[in-house]
């Protein structure tokens, strides 16, 4: 479903991604972990071209995301990739319901009535139907992130990307957001998730990618990765986590 081949990305002279090769299969949950600054977020942002790359290919559903695309084609592509940000990025001038309805109505030309029904169903799914008329500033971080997930789901994407979805949340709100992501995994959604929540990775992931300094150093099933990491850098990373 998503394939990175020989992806290289530079910020000036700094190389943020170094020859990344990996594949996310349909229905698979991939967790990307690694120390801060290792390129995890950069990698996930190349999938919908929020970050440009300098060489290599990112294929989504067989389509080269970084090819010369007409902007309309790129927009259509992006509409099919659900993306959840670390900082939620809800639209503060719109109510929760309008946040979710905006893109189906304006991008996919869904009728307002249908969009509103879908939005309410999704809000119900993330447990926030009673907040439909509230504004983002009136919600807790965990609630905002759940709305952001509902907003991404409203476009009915075949794949969801999560860029550290719980990193800017208070500890007691992490659980409610992870529960929503778990339920998506249980439904068979294809997902790629950058996270520091190792318990979540162990439970939910089909595959763990470990990154450092812009490279994927290790790819493995969570059982293998957490009990028996191969790369010395991954061993050190995991033991540091356990010490804490």
């Amino acid at each position: 479903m998503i394939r990175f081949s020989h992806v290289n990305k530079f910020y000036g002279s700094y190389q943020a991604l170094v020859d990344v090769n990996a594949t996310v299969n349909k229905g698979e949950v991939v967790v990307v972990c690694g120390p801060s600054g290792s390129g995890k977020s950069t990698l996930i942002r190349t999938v919908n071209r929020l970050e440009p790359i300098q060489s290599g290919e990112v294929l989504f559903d067989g389509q080269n995301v970084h090819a010369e695309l007409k902007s309309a084609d790129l927009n259509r592509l992006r509409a099919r990739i659900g993306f959840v940000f670390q900082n939620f990025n809800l639209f503060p001038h719109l109510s929760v319901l309008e946040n979710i309805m905006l893109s189906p109505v304006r991008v996919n030309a869904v009728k307002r009535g249908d969009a509103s029904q879908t939005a309410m169903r999704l809000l119900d799914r993330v447990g926030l139907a009673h907040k439909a008329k509230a504004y983002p500033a009136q919600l807790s971080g965990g609630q905002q992130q759940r709305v952001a997930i509902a907003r991404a789901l409203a476009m009915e994407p075949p794949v969801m990307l999560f860029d550290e979805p719980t990193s800017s949340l208070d500890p007691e709100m992490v659980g409610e957001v992870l529960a929503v992501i778990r339920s998506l995994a249980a439904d068979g959604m294809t997902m790629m998730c950058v996270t520091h929540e190792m318990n979540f990775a162990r439970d939910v992931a089909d595959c763990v990618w470990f990154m450092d300094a812009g490279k994927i150093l290790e790819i493995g099933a969570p059982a293998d990765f957490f009990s028996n990491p191969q790369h010395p850098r991954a061993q050190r990373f995991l033991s540091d986590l356990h010490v804490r």
Partner: protein
Amino acid sequence: MLSNMITIIEDNWLLLLIGQYPNGPLGGIVSTLILSVLGIVLAFPLSVLIALARLSHWKVLNWPATALVYIVRGVPLLMLILLVYFLVPLLIGDSVPGFVTMLCTLVIYEGAFLSEIVRGGIIALPAGQMDAARALGHSHVGAMRYVILPQALYNMMPSILSQFVSTIKETTLGYVINVPELTFAASQLNNRLLTKPFEIFAILAIVYFIVCWSLSELANQLEQRIARQRLGEDPPEAGPSQPGTARIQGAI
């Protein structure tokens, strides 16, 4: 002296209010306000376009917009007025009423200044807003229209109001090309009475002060309100929510 001023106002309030209308062109403070309101209302859409052009990566848009802003910012308004006053008749081969000349000048001048305010408002929004809109599949134009501009322009309201206050003060320069407005009316009055220039121009200053000060106060209040809202204490004004219930939820 105070009694002199009161007498002048009592005898001439209509001239200061509407100029020589209906026997002559509409003037006085009504004309000043119409000129200012029209100026800012017409300048506003222009300023949004200039701001978007300035933020564009396309040189064909970016370059002329930037040049316009720099030129207008670097030239005194009075020069701009005279330029339009002498240039427009040359271009269209006919003389133009002073009011129209002044209005055109104000639209160009305020358009350039407002565009910097609008541009600042757009830049000040977190980059995540544009990212989120693009990630959801909105085009650049769509993201601007539904996500960025509504927020930026709302946040810009106090600055736009301040610019309106400046505009009111700038209309006084229309005096040099005989635009019938408040300063022009006061000077007509002065030419007629001849002996009380200080009183007349003191009245003029007071009138301008009252109008501009109240609007500035309004801008301040708006600013505080928006600041409160950013902290999540007040629900935003826009949107079909019920403000009453939202306010209670927000307060808790």
